[in-house]
């Protein structure tokens, strides 16, 4: 063929709207006004749902009012419990973060600004459902009254660490609380949620699974494989992307956000994709309930993108001001989830600033006391489980190698 003249190609590398020193902006993030998005029936055909990934389901408006078809049926007690768990999560995480600075642990990771997702989902699902969390999901455990002391002992890797010193701090496992074992690898448990849900369906059980993944991690093959299996076998699972705008130092554009919303990935699998205000406790509750109802009624999986913002650094290992404007959080258009639920409750005359301050003080005191309790057992390096734990649990029964090596080690 004759060669036509075409322009020179060039390679596109996405860059975020603002770097340190720039003025932050989130104008590129499409928002919908609170209350605007319709709430379809759970058995609506996928064909009718194809616009949802491009909208944003919001319930709480700027005044703190709950508006529109997605307002969930919840009691004030329920909301106060949610508020309390979010606040407890924040207080707990802030203390542990500080404990890291004091050398009491090797590592810590916070979910600041994202507490609504873990807490609301924990409360929206049943106690025997199973959640396959990310490392930014301690709110799930807190909402279910998992003993904070056990988390602290794990974080301090001390003698009472429920994971026996084998795991990096924050990589909890809590089967009885519907919280699957975490690992340092991101993404590789997303498909476990699907397998677990398929098993439940196979056994004609009623339990469903929830899988979580960060927006950055949606780029892993695991994401696609999980969604493919979920879709093909109509697994009773909710698959959720927590889009907090950042991977470690990479903005969501490096994961494809310049081209599509993360909810739009549902379209590839012919399943509903909801895009939900991740800082809106009520919207999260409503969307999770909707997806759970679908799952429980054999209508298959739902993908939910929660639009939120990672208000802190990625972990104790990074300084976010090195790669984004220090004041970026203040420009985030969807506010803070705790503030928003608090405003709503106050607006409803179900809460007050005084009560809030009191609760905060009470939670601070309680977490402080629990931390002391953990410190009394020991912090990193000055207390640990029996070293024999290193050799346990490789297999159900130890084989000769670890038996010999224990001997070689002298225990």
């Amino acid at each position: 063929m004759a060669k036509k003249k075409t322009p020179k190609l060039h390679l596109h590398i996405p860059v975020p709207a603002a770097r340190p020193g720039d003025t932050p902006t989130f104008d590129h993030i499409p928002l919908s006004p609170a209350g605007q998005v319709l709430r379809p029936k759970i058995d609506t055909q996928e064909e009718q749902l194809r616009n949802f990934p491009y909208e944003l389901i919001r319930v709480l408006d700027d005044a703190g009012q709950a508006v529109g078809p997605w307002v969930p049926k919840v009691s004030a007690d329920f909301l106060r419990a949610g508020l309390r768990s979010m606040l407890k999560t924040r207080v707990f995480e802030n203390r542990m973060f500080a404990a890291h600075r004091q050398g009491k642990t090797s590592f810590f990771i916070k979910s600041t600004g994202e507490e609504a997702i873990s807490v609301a989902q924990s409360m929206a699902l049943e106690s025997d459902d199973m959640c396959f969390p990310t490392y930014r999901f301690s709110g799930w455990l807190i909402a279910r009254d998992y003993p904070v002391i056990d988390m602290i002992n794990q974080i301090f890797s001390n003698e009472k660490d429920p994971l026996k010193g084998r795991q990096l701090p924050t990589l909890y496992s809590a089967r009885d609380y519907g919280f699957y074992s975490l690992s340092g690898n991101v993404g590789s448990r997303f498909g476990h949620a699907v397998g677990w849900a398929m098993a439940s369906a196979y056994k004609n059980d009623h339990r469903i699974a929830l899988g979580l993944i960060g927006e950055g991690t949606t780029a892993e093959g695991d994401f696609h494989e999980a969604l493919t299996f979920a879709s093909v076998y109509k697994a009773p699972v909710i698959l959720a992307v927590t889009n907090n705008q950042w991977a470690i130092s990479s903005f969501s554009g490096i994961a494809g956000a310049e081209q599509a919303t993360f909810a739009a990935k549902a379209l590839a699998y012919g399943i509903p994709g909801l895009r939900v205000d991740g800082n809106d406790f009520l919207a999260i509750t409503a969307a999770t309930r909707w997806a759970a109802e679908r799952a429980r009624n054999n209508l298959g999986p739902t993908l939910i993108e929660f639009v939120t913002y990672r208000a802190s650094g990625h972990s104790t290992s990074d300084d976010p001001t090195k790669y984004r404007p220090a004041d970026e959080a203040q420009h985030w258009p969807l506010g803070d989830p705790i503030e928003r639920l608090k405003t709503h409750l106050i607006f409803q005359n179900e809460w007050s600033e005084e009560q809030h301050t009191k609760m905060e003080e009470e939670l601070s005191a309680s977490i402080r006391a629990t931390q002391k309790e953990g410190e009394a057992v020991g912090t990193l390096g000055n207390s640990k489980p029996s070293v024999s734990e290193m050799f346990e649990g490789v297999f159900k029964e130890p084989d000769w190698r670890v038996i010999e090596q224990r001997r070689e080690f002298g225990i």
Partner: protein
Amino acid sequence: MATMNMLQAINNALDVKLAEDPDVLVFGEDVGYFGGVFNATKGLQEKHGLTRCFDTPISEGGIIATAIGMGAYGLRPVPEIQFADYILPAFDQLVSEAARLRYRSNGEFWAPLTVRSPYGGGIFGGQTHSQSPEAIFAHITGLKTVIPSNPYDAKGLLIAAIEDDDPVIFLEPKRLYNGPFDGRHEEVVKTWAGHPNADVPAGNYTVPLGKAAIVRPGADVTVIAYGTMVHVAQAGIDDSGVDAELIDLRSIVPLDIDTIVASVRKTGRCVILHEASRFGGFGGELSALIQERCFYHLKSKIERVAGWDTAYPHAFEWDYFPGPARLSEALKRSMEA
């Protein structure tokens, strides 16, 4: 008791477990209606139902991730990976997840999967239908790796693997599916009929993981093999005229170190045979373990006979394949030294 080839024995093991345990599920690419590209799951969907034995998307990572999730729920999944060469896309799931789940969760969750996969060469499958990946699994703490060499063991080991609460990689020597193959590829193809290990009991029985078999007792040199190579070893031993003791490992993790050590201490000589390429292969580990434990008993150096350090080349299959002649020479070298 019936005469079965290796495929039938494997099929029968799955049949027995599907019938006996509602928590056992069999799935993989083409394993459902079609019964697998090698027929290993033939008839199981029809007999046990659509949800007990079914096809999966072409996604080895997805297959294993799904199986792990099912295992965490409480099932005993038996996924098939169509060729061991295609286990690699699932390697992260096997290593980072299946192998580590019990340890990291302090026993709250575990992954009792049995990953069946045909492996090895000898069928003109070319580079990507012939590989033997056992060494990379052997290095992974938390994984067991089992490799049968005959129908009786295949069924008993497979049932043991399925009943085991740890993740097991179950590698099936595809060249042995229909008959014992001793590497003499020019000769007429043999079937399992008449082979002592083709008598397979009907019901549930197990061959324990981690127990090697002494296939042929001998005084002068120990030959260690597994899978297809057990038969090649027999032929090579016959050719050499050496009174070799032949050990079939049956599982490489757990490894039956006692049987190995006792034999080498007795014979003072050792030849290791595997089909995988030599460098970094499982033979290195065996050699190291043996010299560590039998140093003063060794009369000559431990020899390794293995595939070359190249890919598995289609046209040169029989040049690559470590056949009886190569073993026989190694045996002679070992005896002469």
